[in-house]
Structure formats: structure tokens, C-alpha cells
């Protein structure tokens, strides 16, 4: 499997570390339902069969966290973006 890193180009997936579901947002720790929200955030997963937005970290490359959209049934990569978008960080 190859991941088209927006910074480094197409690289073997072995260069990246995987974290999983990128649709989750860290809840507000001050909210009254924080305990329940953090439980869902840390433990519950949609785990879809099909398109999946997921975090990959280019550990053996540019060290950028990426959000990769990938089909979990076919492994086809549908899209890649930096987790932290920033115009000034794309190489010339």
C-alpha cells in the first residue's frame, strides 16, 4: 500500500504510523458531559466498511500528521491532506 504524502510524494505505507479514525474531535473537557464525551472519543468507533478518514503519521519522512481517506474494503486511497493545513508549509 502506498500513501501519497503531500510533502514527500508517494511512499510505502510502512514509512507511516497509523492512529485511526480522524473524524473524532477531542471534546471540551470543561463540558458537563465531559466524562461521557471522552469515553466516546477514546473508545467508540464508527469502524466503517468503505471510505474511512484516518490519521497517518509520516514517521520516517516529513513527520507530518496526515488525514487519509481510504476505502477499508479495497484499500484504495481516496484523498490525503495535512492534518494541520497551512499554505506556507508546502514546499516550493
Amino acid at each position: 500500500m502506498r500513501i501519497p504524502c503531500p510533502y514527500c510524494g508517494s511512499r510505502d505505507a510502512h514509512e507511516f504510523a497509523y492512529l485511526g479514525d480522524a473524524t473524532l474531535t477531542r471534546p471540551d473537557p470543561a463540558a458537563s458531559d465531559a466524562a461521557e464525551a471522552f469515553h466516546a472519543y477514546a473508545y467508540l468507533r464508527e469502524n466503517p466498511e468503505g471510505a474511512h478518514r484516518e490519521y497517518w503519521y509520516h514517521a520516517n519522512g516529513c513527520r507530518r500528521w496526515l488525514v487519509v481517506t481510504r476505502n477499508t474494503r479495497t484499500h484504495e486511497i481516496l484523498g490525503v491532506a495535512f492534518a494541520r493545513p497551512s499554505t506556507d508549509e508546502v514546499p516550493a
Partner: protein
Amino acid sequence: MTRLSTGGLIDRSRTLSFTFDGVAYTGHPGDTLASALLANGVRLVGRSFKYHRPRGIFTCGSEEPNALVELRTGARKEPNTRATTVELFDGLVAQSQNRWPSLEHDALSVNQWLTPFLGAGFYYKTFMWPASFWEKVYEPTIRRAAGLGAASELVDPDTYEKAFAFCDVLVIGSGATGLAAALAAARSGARVILADEDFRLGGRLLTENVAIDGAPARDFVARAEAELSSLPNVRLMPRTTVFGAYDGSEYACVERVSDHVAVPAAFQPRQRLWRIIAKRAILATGAFDRPIVFPGNDRPGVMTAQALATYAQRFGVGAGANAAVFTNNDAGVAAALAAANAGLTLEAVIDVRDALPSPLAAKAKALGVRVITGGEVIATKGKRLSAITVRTKSGTQTLAVEALGISGGATPNLNLTCHLGGKPVYREDIAAFVPGAVPPGMSCAGAVAGQFSLSDCLNAGTEQGAAAAADAGFARAAAPAPKAEETPTGIRAFWQVKAKGDLAFVDLQNDVSAKDVGIAHKEGFRAVELLKRYTTMGMATDQGKNSNMAGLALMAELTGQGIAATGTTVFRPPYTPVALGVLAGHHREKDFRPTRPTPTHAWAEGQGAVFVETGFWLRAAYFPKPGEKDWLESVNREVKATRESVGVIDVSTFGKIDLQGPDVGTFLDRVYINMFSTLQVGKARYGVMLREDGLVMDDGTTARLADTHYVMTTTTANAGKVFQHLEFCLQVLWPELDVQLASISEQWAQIAVSGPRSREVLAKLVDGHDVSNAGLPFMGVAQTTVLGGIEARIFRLSFSGELGYEIAVPARQGERLMETIMEAGRPFGITPYGTETLGVLRIEKGHVSGSELNGQTTARDLGLGRMASTKKDYIGRVLSQRPAFQDPARPIFVGFKPVDKAQRLRAGAHLLTVGAQATTHNDEGYVTSVAYSPTLGHFIGLGFLKRGLERIGEQVRAYDPVRGSDILVEVCSPAFVDPEGEKQRV
């Protein structure tokens, strides 16, 4: 000898010697072991798996089910090697396998007489009485009888390599289709790789009597190879098997660099693993000739018609003194005629059809070949085939033949199309499965796609090659496809001869017969996957290439469902068996993983250090001195020296992370449970960080070097994990924070000097910096120079509990710093120590380390709960407050000392209340770390005990049955030495 008088792509001017089962034979360059054996009249080469029936050479390629041999000897022995793929070399040694005492007289061939008992699944129904007999009697017997060849049990002496390649068009297979495709793609300028498992390009063209562009096919092969070789954008890879298709248009291949020589040349690997990333791939892997199921279809001498023709045409070998061919299709007849053309004595072609197409009938007539139409082979004779019985409408007749070629039609070699989940589709018109969905970027051309005529193959190859290159962005070249005549491709689907008699085999290697398919049907194992698993059909080393088609056709007939509805099992990698060594490459034995030496490694070696692996690092464990009887004596000396005077250790392996930017303080407050934004410049602080689930991830000290500049240390084990975590927090959770991170673990050497005299040593190193207690207080940090101008960071930290400093200098200065420290410390008897003493010092102090930070413990468990700030949020705060983590009964960090001070305590012991039964239910905790404390004169331990803090002074059992130990220990504070921490502050 059955070498034909002329012909064959062999070099008859040179002779190669080889032995099989100790008998010496000769062959020629260009031979395979199989062709050379046949040329020497060796027809019995193996025994089958279950019944130990005599078996011969069945095919001419990598799908061979029968002719498996142990190739080479000693450490290079390769069991289960297919004689049909072994390129003959001078001095080759091979022996038959799975027989005892000899191939000719195999004792286990008695199993043949037990055949009525040994039907499919028999072992599931028996060997159960009595229960204890399975491991003791039945299983050892089965295990000895099972298996094929024997492993050498010696270290593989050869080396393997790995490589990546990238291309526009990968062409897999170099027959007519593959060559045409490669030519078309290459002429457009695309980067082309042409891979073929054979050692010679050409595929079937080396076997067939056909003309291309008006000349013999072999001339076309030679011209194509010459042109492709001349092009800089083409890489030809013969002896290279593409064994797997993977995601991202990746094809895994094995190049057999040295398997055709006795020993690899100097600096050459035996094999090379390629991962080829191809924009487009063309599968041109052709088709197999498949067997027909009939009684006795397994005797040595029975082989595919394609093999019969190939041995005659390509190798100049008659598979027997005379032969017949039994077929249901035009290609089978053509193969028979090709064999006859090469000089094989062909007694008859037996075709199940009532008539041959007229061109083939005419050719047969011209060659004087007898054709028996409407005929079936119903029996065979001979340990080595001597005769066959043919049944026609007019009766039966017996033909005396030594070889029988069989062809039940062509099975497209579509293995690779299934690797990403593609399911083959059945075509009634050609009685074959063709590729269904194929991997992205792959296209199939020629026989693999069900295009069996030569002209179709050449056209399809040319078209697909050009199209693939165009897809990859190259203009189509304007060369026409090579021209050839249409070859007949007619077939009448025919799977099994209905006749009583000997077993009729479906899977030759695993001895699955038509009767077994019947049992599976009766017992309900009808789905193809169940049929396969119950009978083991298709699970032999050919992975069903020879057997699947007939097996599922037989099942389809029994269920009446038809072949399309029955479906086929799918193929998975590898296409053919792959040496395990090549998949590892260089990463084996000592080179399994890289070794990270510390900056002072060479110095430590010079000091006689004993090293220990900690992750990839190699660290000094201790520094034995002459006369010391064991490691403990050395460690006791090192501990004592450090506590009483001064010791030194390289701590460069700790993770070091540089953090800069205006928001670093805020950032650290969010990742540590305690505050760092309030840390003064020039000070360091111990911090604990949690995972989001509330359990401790890591600990370490972080220092503030400037208002916007911190440097963090992590544990050795978690350096990478923490860095990745911090990057996640910054890039994903809080992108608004202005912080930059850099790992500086490799850039800085860090050496800890500890002990009451450490300040005096340090004073000699610094270039005038004030290192007094006032000038550099406990937890203070100095950025200065040492050794006359070397940049240095000095941290006044203490893991040992003694007055101590960690001095960091650029990594290349580490060794010099160590030597200088040793020189400066000489008057104080400075003592280098390693990880063992480091462990004793920290256990005596009750500091937690890797054994306690095991990912299962909370800050509260570790006695660090009070560090957590209540004024802020931080990673892990919310979930650390879950009820289970607040349970007062949770095991908590305490110390232990043996009640009988002479007794040894060991880490891993479980803790039980005195008098309680040793059960899981009564388990109250465990000991994590243990050391012999030379300071106290007895063993001490750290660990976790339920309600531990309330039980200080209580005696509990340290239960360690795996080491035969069960002792009483007293629960105590984990701080055994200097509990108030006064020594480090002086």
C-alpha cells in the same frame, strides 16, 4: 536413454553431471532436472503424500505436483523442490523424498491397501479412543508419516537481498503475448519490466510448431529478446517470479539470482526480493494444461500433453520410448503432433470427441499418427506406465505405451488476478475460468484471458502493451502486431472418465480421488471452500493449479448446480512457493535489527563493559573488574562507589526533544499532568504525562532553557512514542499553538555524574561556571561550555538520589567528555557504572521506571497522583477520573523487604495475604522491580499491592512458584534510602 536424436534448446556440445538418489547421470545446459531425468530414462521420481503411490514427472513448469525432490545437500538442502523448475547445473545433487527405505521400495506404500479406510475426513472420525493416545501414539505416527521433504535443520549459508523498482509497464510472462506487449510498450518509450519465472524467454513458443511473421516462432523470440535487450528503457527479468499483487500497484517478485549454479558467486545473493511499483501491469501468464480424471491417472509416465510436447520440442527428450495422448481439445491434439514432430514415437491420439477439426486431422494423417476418436482411457498399468486401456464405442483395446499425455483443456493462469479479491468467472464456451475483477492498473492478455489462439495472443499483447504505455503517458508506437496463423482452440468440456477400477485422482499430491469428492458431497461439504478443506484438495504445493478445476467440476456434477454456480476457490499469494529467507533479506540473525551504540560505546568497550540490549540500543550493563566473581559483586562495588564518592554513566539513550516557540509553556501544561508554564528559566522539573485514557504514558524531566525554549527528556523506551504523541497534539489537537519540535536524542551525548564528590568532578570540567549549590542549585540548569569551549548543558538532576549532574555535549564530543570526566574523577576513585547499578540506585530511592510505567498504571497507582494540577486540563485528565481508577482497593505503589533478610525476592512474584489460598481471586498485586541493596545489605523490591499504603508494616506472601519461591515480605515505603531526599540537595 530417451534423449531424441536431434532438436531441443539444449547445448549438446556440453555435458553436465548430476546425481539422483546417488546414481550419476548427465544432461546438457538448457535442461531442467526433470528433462535430464527423463532423458536418462528416470521416470519414477517421487511418492505421493498419503498412499505413497509411485509418481513421476507430471508437468514441465512451476505447477508440478509430483516431482518434488530434495535438492542439494547439507545446509543448502532444499526440500520439496520441483524438478521441473530446477535449471540443471554441473554437480547437482538431488534425492527423492517422503519414502523409506527407498523410492523403489517404500514401506508406507502399504497405505494403498488401506485406501478403503483412508477416505476424505477419516481422521476426524477416529483416533479418539482412548483420549490420551492422541499425543502419545496417534499424532506422532501421523506426523512422521506426513510432511514431504526434510529440512536441513542447518543455518542457511546464503544471503538474500531486497530491492524496489518502479516502471510504467510491468509485463508478467514472456510468451507470445508478453513479448508482443513488451515490444509495443517499449517502442513507445515507456519504462518496461518484463518478468518471467522461466530461465528462458518465450513461454509456449519454445514448444509449438508455429510460424510468426513467416518464420519459426523461436526466431521471433530471439528477435524480440534482442530488440528488448537493446532498449535502455527495458529491463528483462528472467528467472523472476511475480508471486503477489498488492495494494498500490505493487508486485512482489523473487529473482533467482544464483539457483542455477552450485554456489552463489562471491558477493552475489542466492535470491533477490523485488517490490515493483508499476503504473500498469499486463498479465500474460498463459494457461495450464489440465488433467482428466480417470482410473490410474497418476502413474509415472502420465503427464500433461503440454509437458509431453515441451520435453520433446524444447529439451529433445522423449518422456518414454513411446507415448499416447488423451484429450478433449484441439490444443491437446496440437501438443501431441508437436511431440511427434520432434521425433517422439506417438502410438495414438485418443480424443473423447467424435471427430477432430479437419486441419488437425490432416496434420495427424500427414505425420502418420493414429487418431482414436470417441475414445477414453479407462485404465493404466505398470509401476512405471507400461500400458493403457482405451474404451470406444466398439470396445476396449490396450496400447503398450511408456508415456501418456493428457489434456483436459486450458486453465488460464490467473492466480495474480485474485490477490486483491477478484473472483474468476466461468466461460462455458471455453470450459474455463477467466479473470473477473482485476487489481487496479492490471490488464490481462492472451491465454490467461481465454484467448487461446496464437494470433489472438499476439494481437492482444500488442494492443494491451500499447494501451498500457499510452495510459502511462507515452505516445503509441506505430508497429503492427506480429502475424501468425489462427490455431484451433476447440474443446468439448470433459472432466472425468466414468469407469471402475483403480483410484482416479483429482489432486495428485494430496491423493484426493474422485471418490473423496463423493464422500465430501455425501457429508455436506459441498461449497468449494468446504470441499477443499475437508478433502485437502487444492492445498498441496501446487495450490490446486492442477486439481481445482476437475474437483469443482465433479462436485458441480454431483450437486447438479453447474460449474458457474459452484464457483472456484480464490488464489492468494504467493503464486508459487517462495523461499522464506528471501522475504527476510539481510534482516536475519545478528542483523535482524540495527544496533544503536551510545556515544561512549567504544570507551565502554575499552573499560571491559558487559553490554545489554535495551531496545535497539546497546548499553553498558556493568563494568566487571578482574577478580570479581559475578555481576553482583561488580554492581555492589559500583553502587557503593557512587553512594560514597562518585560514579558515572552514559544516559544518552534517554529521548531528548527540543521545544521552541511562544506557546511551549501552554503546550507542556496540556501534555503533562503538572505545570510547566510556571517553570523558571534555568530550572528543570520532573513531569508525568498520561495517555488520553488516563494511564501513565511516560515520565522525565523537562528544563526551561529560555523563555520560549524547553528541552524535554523521555524514557529510553518511549522516545519515539512521546515524540509522535507531541506532534499529534500540536498538529491535530492544538494547531493554534506556536511550537516547533525537534528530536535531539541523537545530537546530544548526555553523561550523568553522581555521588557526593560529583560537584568536585564537575568543577574541573566547566569553563569557569559557578557550580556551587548556590550557583547551580538542585534542579538547576546551566548553559555553558566545558573542556575549553565545548557547548554544554548541565542539569542538576538525580535519579540515584545522590548529588548529581547530567552533562550534555554535542554527540561527537561524548567520548572526549567521558574520558575527561574519568580523568577528573580519578582522585575520587570515580567509578563507571551501567544499567544494573542504575537500576539498583533507583530502586533504593523508590523511583518508578519501565517496570512500573507498564501502561497499566495511573499516576495515583504510582504514588504520583498529587503531582496532578487541578488548575488546568491536560491529556488524560478526564478519563483518569473514571470510577475504576479511583477505586481505593486498586493496587498501589509500595516497597517490600524480605522478613528473613537472607532471602531473595524476585520481580514477577505475586502478593497474597498470609493464609490465603493461592488463587486468582486472592491475587493482591505483584512485585515489579527487585534489587540487592548493598547499602542496606538485603534484597528490596518495588511493586503494587491492593490498599498498599494502608498496609505499611504488614507482612504478605511474595508468591513466585515458577521460580520455586514463596517468601514473607514486609510492606514498606518505596524510598529505602534517604527518604527525605536530602543527599541530592546538598
